[in-house]
């Protein structure tokens, strides 16, 4: 059985277009309620709640409960880690192809 890394969970959560839009809506530091997000995305509340749960499990949003209102805030750390993975692979292949080019020219 394979182990799922935290990063895998982040990428899974980000694989959905609606969830990426929700992340963007939170990027300015706002802390909307589930109801406000539902109106903004014109989606049924259960759909929004499901997406928020996935984002929460991946550590991408943090939920705070104020009475009956659940508010959501973006957590930057997993996003940064996801970006670092992409940047690392990008740097790896850029460097490797540079060397490949030199090798092919030289021999």
């Amino acid at each position: 059985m394979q182990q799922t890394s935290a990063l895998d969970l982040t990428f899974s959560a980000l694989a959905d277009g609606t969830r990426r839009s929700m992340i963007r809506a939170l990027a300015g530091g706002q802390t909307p309620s589930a109801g406000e997000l539902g109106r903004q995305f014109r989606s049924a509340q259960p759909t929004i709640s499901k997406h928020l749960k996935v984002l929460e499990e991946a550590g991408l949003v943090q939920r705070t409960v104020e009475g009956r209102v659940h508010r959501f805030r973006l957590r930057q750390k997993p996003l940064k880690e996801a970006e670092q993975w992409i940047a690392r692979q990008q740097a790896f292949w850029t460097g490797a192809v540079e060397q490949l080019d030199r090798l092919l020219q030289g021999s």
Partner: protein
Amino acid sequence: MSHEPAVAEIRRRLRAPPDRVFSAFAQVEMISRWLTPSPEIKLTVLEFDFRVGGAYRFAYHITGGQVMIVNGTYRSIEPASKIVFTWNIEAPDEHAGLHSQVIIAIMPDGDGCELHIRHERLAQSGAVERHSEGWRGALDQLAALLCSTWAVA
């Protein structure tokens, strides 16, 4: 981040014909001379079985004595044009546990070729396997239950 976010991609025109570029991926004595992110990081090939289903394992000697080990399997090989392989970084690396794949496409372009490399996360491969294992387990239990019921009957 409007598209699938877990992708690194590069394109590069090379002044070498497609079959030479393909050889650089296919021959172990070539690979160790270039497949590292910088000349300071040396590659030791621990395993290299270049055929569909064959495995590879590379050790990267990073400055400061650290070693990063990558392993994977060749999933598809089309001579002089395409290679697909999985790419897993082994523990204790910070990115261990994330399963990804690399798609190499080599297209002829005049007297050279264009090399296109796409490195992407393998979407939920682990999750899919876990699910199918779960189902297998459930079916095995069901089969066992039915057999015991029949045995009693």
